């Protein structure tokens, strides 16, 4: 029964991922056409620099704005596309710093709505881990969500990646808007949340740990050497 439900869940996730990936690909085609069309308008304008054109400056500003927003759209589509491709492989070798950056970008809007900013301090070297890419992103997202739900506006959540031997640690550290440290372990150790995170973490073959000073929560993963 449990295995059948799991198979059904996996099929649903795969379906969602496949359709989302296809649509984000199409969005990139749309954005590419807009970008090339704006580029062509810029080319034409620059070819006629000497000709009088009373609205040139406003026109240039509008074109720059379209380029900026197109690039923003491309970044969003690319991130969503990458998330949609996450279930493609149940287990894969991924780079930890890179995956955390992806989650930070995906979580940015949610955190901003709470008035909280997110920061990543990656490890200086690439750290490869072998696990479910989708589950890793989910665990990090859930941990971040637990933190920002209890923080005051103006606060920030820092993720710091360190390495000790064959293990990598992702440290969650929270600071409130007034500069006071908030114990990330507090919201994450609430019974219901803790159980959920424990379940997700055990599926990932990694573990969690708390440190007292400064108060922080750590996600510890085996590094693939």
């Amino acid at each position, binding site marked *: 029964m449990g295995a059948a439900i799991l198979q059904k869940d996996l099929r649903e996730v795969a379906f969602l991922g496949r359709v989302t990936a296809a649509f984000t690909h199409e969005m990139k085609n749309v954005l590419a056409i807009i970008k090339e069309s704006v580029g062509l308008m810029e080319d034409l304008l620059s070819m006629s620099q000497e000709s009088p054109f009373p609205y040139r400056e406003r026109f240039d500003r509008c074109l720059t704005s379209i380029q900026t927003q197109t690039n923003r759209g491309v970044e969003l589509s690319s991130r969503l596309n990458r998330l949609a*491709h996450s279930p493609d492989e149940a287990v894969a070798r991924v780079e930890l710093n890179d995956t955390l950056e992806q989650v930070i970008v995906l979580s940015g809007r949610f955190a901003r709505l709470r008035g909280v900013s997110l920061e990543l301090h990656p490890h200086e070297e690439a750290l490869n881990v072998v696990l479910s890419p989708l589950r890793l992103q989910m665990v990090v997202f859930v941990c971040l969500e637990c933190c920002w739900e209890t923080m005051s506006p103006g606060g920030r959540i820092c993720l710091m990646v360190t390495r000790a031997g064959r293990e990598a640690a992702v440290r969650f550290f929270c600071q409130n808007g007034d500069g006071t440290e908030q114990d990330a372990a507090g919201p994450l150790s609430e019974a219901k949340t803790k159980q959920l995170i424990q379940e997700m973490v055990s599926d990932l073959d990694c573990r969690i740990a708390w440190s007292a000073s400064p108060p922080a929560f750590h996600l510890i993963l085996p590094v693939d050497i």
Partner: protein
Amino acid sequence: MAKFKVLLVDDEAEFVATLAERLAMRGFAPEVAFSGEEAIALLARNTPDVMVLDLKMPGMDGLEVLRRAKKSCPRIQVIILTGHGSERDEEAARRLGAFEHLNKPVDIKELVGVMEQAFDHCRTTES
């Protein structure tokens, strides 16, 4: 006189037509194909130095065009330009001999730079 022979292959007609116009302003005279089949037919008539190729197209896809192009004319340098690129597709394209893999949309300066590198590589391979 065009810098070197370029073929653009993409089923997004508006995209490829605009890109061709922008490349023409930069001294190129690109030919355009809107499908893989059309690209293969063009290759037989007028072999380009550099091909800029989309991956996902109805009918013959970009990987198949790449495979056939490299088989019939190994000197052609193929630049993949796609909005559909997964890491797996990129690996497959590189295995088949693609010179470079770029994601849509691309900055025109970057594309022209890669096209020139591809042409240099094409000439080096010939000599």
